[in-house]
């Protein structure tokens, strides 16, 4: 046993005056009597109690001394845990599987709630004598409270925690192990059900992760085995015991087309049951998307629109992940809710262990195509390049001269100022303006060098193999982002943004007509890449996103920002460089400068739905410290002893 405040042990010196005070206190008050011989008769009859009365004073003194000793020991803050003074990092798994019932036979307490309770007990056991931090773990690490020795802050942080709908990511655990390995004075305790902390049986293939999301986040990492430095406290059924029965959506998608039906639903389910079960998938229309109904742009249209069941799909669900299937539908653009229900032989709905994975929120978008105008003497090749990518109605649309356009393609120079569309692609500029400040003679030969290889415009365009014939010695406007430049520094492809005019111009310093570049297959590729990049159409619209994914707002152009309102409440601002993370399932709405855009999210994580805490999830099971500290018990003992002494005192005083 050690004492954190041994100075208080000097308090034992107070026992001597305590005894003296007690002896003075217990001296009874003198009371004159006129017939003491009568009292003698009584005392003779009750002689048997005299010994107890004598001992009672001694017992009372002992009790007081014991209470004082207990209080002094409590003040000295004894510890009997072997002197472990390390800081503690409490990690609580808040992945979607933690919302499952802790005990399948007793619904009501989720694994996450049990984890928070265990963390509370751990905080209580620390009692402010050691620092602790609390963080949540799913596919990323989020600190709820930094290292502190204030139990109140820790308890408040625990009270604020809520289970999420993102999957677990084992890489986060690996990073924590590294952190713990670097800091030996840190004890890391992970409260988890172990689901998703090992390599999944198969990769997500039906719903690729969007840009900005780490596609390998849920993939296994064999060399990331959990080491002993992270102590794992398992919650829920241990490995080897029966897995709670659950069926969930593993993947769902809704795309337009697919034949004469108008739309196609892709559906894959997963089951943790050991035997085949039956289920039903119900697709319910929730109303129009926010692009067509401004009143629905509140982010909660699914709660307000009347539900119309589009289709009910009976399912025979096999154990494990089921192969995806396609279902043609008659569905108009709008919002949909896909609900999965396990049913028995009579078709009655049956509960399962996890409810979060039973619902997917889908959106069948009908975005307006990007309207492209061509302003060039030789329009044919340009218009052909645009029409080559107009086979999908939601991508590009060639507009005639004079009609409003989103993007214009120029050859020979763009107008300055605000005239014309705000998005511009300029080929072979021959005059200053529109991102060009100075025009010189033609280059004899250009040796292109890619300066921004990851730029979307250059994704499918091999700039270094292009001759850039017809290029001139130009000077880009200040603040331009040069994608490709000549070896002498002459910009060949650059992007300029004029905040005053509100225009974004991509300048291509080559003449398409020279060298028959218009006949090259890379000419339409360049036109397409420039148009989709400037139009914010780099990524296709999805029917739904996975919870936990970081999503770039579709249609958001360079330099623009969108306010994203979450279905669960709250709002953030997203830009093309800062995608938005969708924490919870529901219809989130991004308010772009032109239109509101649906960002539906669904908790479809097949490995989470299986609820299997894999045995190699990491670390050996540890006994979590809990209970109250010794000083608390000492105070309790002292109070109890004082109460007992008070009873004796009361009996002495009032008989």
């Amino acid at each position, binding site marked *: 046993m050690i004492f954190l405040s041994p100075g208080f042990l000097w308090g034992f010196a107070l026992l001597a005056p305590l005894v003296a005070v007690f002896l003075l206190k*217990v*001296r*009874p*008050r*003198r*009371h*004159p*009597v*006129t*017939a*003491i*011989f*009568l*009292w*003698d*008769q*009584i*005392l003779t*009859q*009750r002689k048997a*109690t005299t010994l107890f*009365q004598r001992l009672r004073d001694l017992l009372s003194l002992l009790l007081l001394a014991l209470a004082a000793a207990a209080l002094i020991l409590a003040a000295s803050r004894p510890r009997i845990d072997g002197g472990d003074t390390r800081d503690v990092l409490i990690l609580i798994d808040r992945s979607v599987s933690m919302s499952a019932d802790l005990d399948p036979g007793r619904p009501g307490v989720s694994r996450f709630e049990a984890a928070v309770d265990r963390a509370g007990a751990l905080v209580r056991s620390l009692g402010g004598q050691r620092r602790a931090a609390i963080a949540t773990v799913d596919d990323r690490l989020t600190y709820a409270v930094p290292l502190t020795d204030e139990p109140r802050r820790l308890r408040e942080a625990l009270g604020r925690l809520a289970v999420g709908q993102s999957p677990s990511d084992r890489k986060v655990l690996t990073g924590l192990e590294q952190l713990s390995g670097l800091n030996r004075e840190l004890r890391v305790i992970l409260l988890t059900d172990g689901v998703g902390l090992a390599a999944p049986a198969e990769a997500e293939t039906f719903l690729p992760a969007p840009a900005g999301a780490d596609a390998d986040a849920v993939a296994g990492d064999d060399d990331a085995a959990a080491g002993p430095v992270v102590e794992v406290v398992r919650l829920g059924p241990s490995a080897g015991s029966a897995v709670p029965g659950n069926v969930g959506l593993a993947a769902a998608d809704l795309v337009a087309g697919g034949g004469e039906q108008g739309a196609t639903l892709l559906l894959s389910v997963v089951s943790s049951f050991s035997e085949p079960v039956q289920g039903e998938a119900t697709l319910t229309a929730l109303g129009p998307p926010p692009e067509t109904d401004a009143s629905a742009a509140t982010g909660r249209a699914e709660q307000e629109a009347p539900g119309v069941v589009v289709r009910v799909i009976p399912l025979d669900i096999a154990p494990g992940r089921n192969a995806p299937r396609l279902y043609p539908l008659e569905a108009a653009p709008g919002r949909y809710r896909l609900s999965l229900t396990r049913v028995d032989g009579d078709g009655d709905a049956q509960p399962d262990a996890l409810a979060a994975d039973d619902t997917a929120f889908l959106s069948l978008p009908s975005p307006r195509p990007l309207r492209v105008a061509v302003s060039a003497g030789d329009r044919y090749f340009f218009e052909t390049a645009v029409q080559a990518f107009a086979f999908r109605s939601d991508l590009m649309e060639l507009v005639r001269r004079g009609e409003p356009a989103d993007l214009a393609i120029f050859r020979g120079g763009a107008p300055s100022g605000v005239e014309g569309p705000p998005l511009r692609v300029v080929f072979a500029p021959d005059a200053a303006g529109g991102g060009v400040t100075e025009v010189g003679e033609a280059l004899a030969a250009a040796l292109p060098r890619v300066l921004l290889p990851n730029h979307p415009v250059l994704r499918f365009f091999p700039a270094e193999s292009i001759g850039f014939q017809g290029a001139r010695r130009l000077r880009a406007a200040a603040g331009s982002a040069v994608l490709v430049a000549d070896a002498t520094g002459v910009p060949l492809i650059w992007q300029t943004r004029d905040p005053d005019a509100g225009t974004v111009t991509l300048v291509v310093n080559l003449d398409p007509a020279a060298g028959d570049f218009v006949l090259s297959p890379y000419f339409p590729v360049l036109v397409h890449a420039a148009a989709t990049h400037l139009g914010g159409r780099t990524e296709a619209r999805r029917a739904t996103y996975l919870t936990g994914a970081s999503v770039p707002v579709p249609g958001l152009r360079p330099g623009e920002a969108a306010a994203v309102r979450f279905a669960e409440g709250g709002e953030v601002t997203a830009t093309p460089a800062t995608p938005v993370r969708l924490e919870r399932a529901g219809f989130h709405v991004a308010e772009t400068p032109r239109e509101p855009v649906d960002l539906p999210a669904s908790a479809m994580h097949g490995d989470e739905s299986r609820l299997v805490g894999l045995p190699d999830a990491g670390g050996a099971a540890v006994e979590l410290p809990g209970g109250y500290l010794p000083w608390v018990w000492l105070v309790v003992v002292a109070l109890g002893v004082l109460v007992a002494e008070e009873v004796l005192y009361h*009996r*002495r*005083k*009032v*008989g």
Partner: protein
Amino acid sequence: MSLTDPAFIQRLESLALLARRVLGGKLQANRRTTRKGTGVSFADYAEYHLGDDHRAIDWRVYGRLEHLVIKLFELEEDMTLVVLLDTSASMRDKLPYARQLAAALGFLALRGLDRVAVYALSSGIQPVLETAHGRAKVMPLLRALEGVSAGGEASDFEAGCRTLVARHRRRMMVVPISDFFFPTGFDTALSLLRHQRHEVFCLQVQSPGDRRCTLRGDAELACVETGQTRRVTVRPAEAAAYERAVVKWNAQLEHACRRRGVGLASTLTDVPFDEVMQRVLRRGGLVA
């Protein structure tokens, strides 16, 4: 209230009037003795019985009637009232009340032309007022009683009575005024007085605190007379036992008095003294 206070004396006068009305004007010295045949005034004849004094036989009557009769004479005797006033420490809070009672008794006796003597009773007896006679001794009696104070040694009723009977051979009325909390008891003393043919009337004066125990918890009991101490824890059971012991003690006193033909009047100090005296007069136990 001082004993010489006119208001107090007025109350004594009222008692005297009451006594005259109750007793028909025959106070003690005026009443004739019941021991007929020993006085100087002829009263009556009585048939002779074996054992009667031969000197009382009226031989003239026998000569005429041949029947033995004896002459009875009345004796106008004056009684001596001896007040034994307990002045032990235990009477400290009750002594003023006891003095009032003693003053009332002495006043009535002196107004009735009886003799009065007052003794302070503690470990022995100390004369407070030597035998006095006549109404002129009323004020000396009251002043003497005024000077009596409590705080003497432990009271010894038996020793005091032995001293008293040794001093007064004549028959007298002895009135002990005390709480009768005598550790050695009162039986022997009462028997001694009665054995000397004294009339005895006990006036027991106790305070409410003597009969009721309001003490609770740990206490050190200290005897006011002997200084002895006892450490006790007084619970309701002990308090009740004490009160039962007091009741039993008083019952023993009552029984002892009844067995010996001794009058007894018990009172508490919260009862006005003249009320007690009226009750005694009406009952006739003391004066009549």
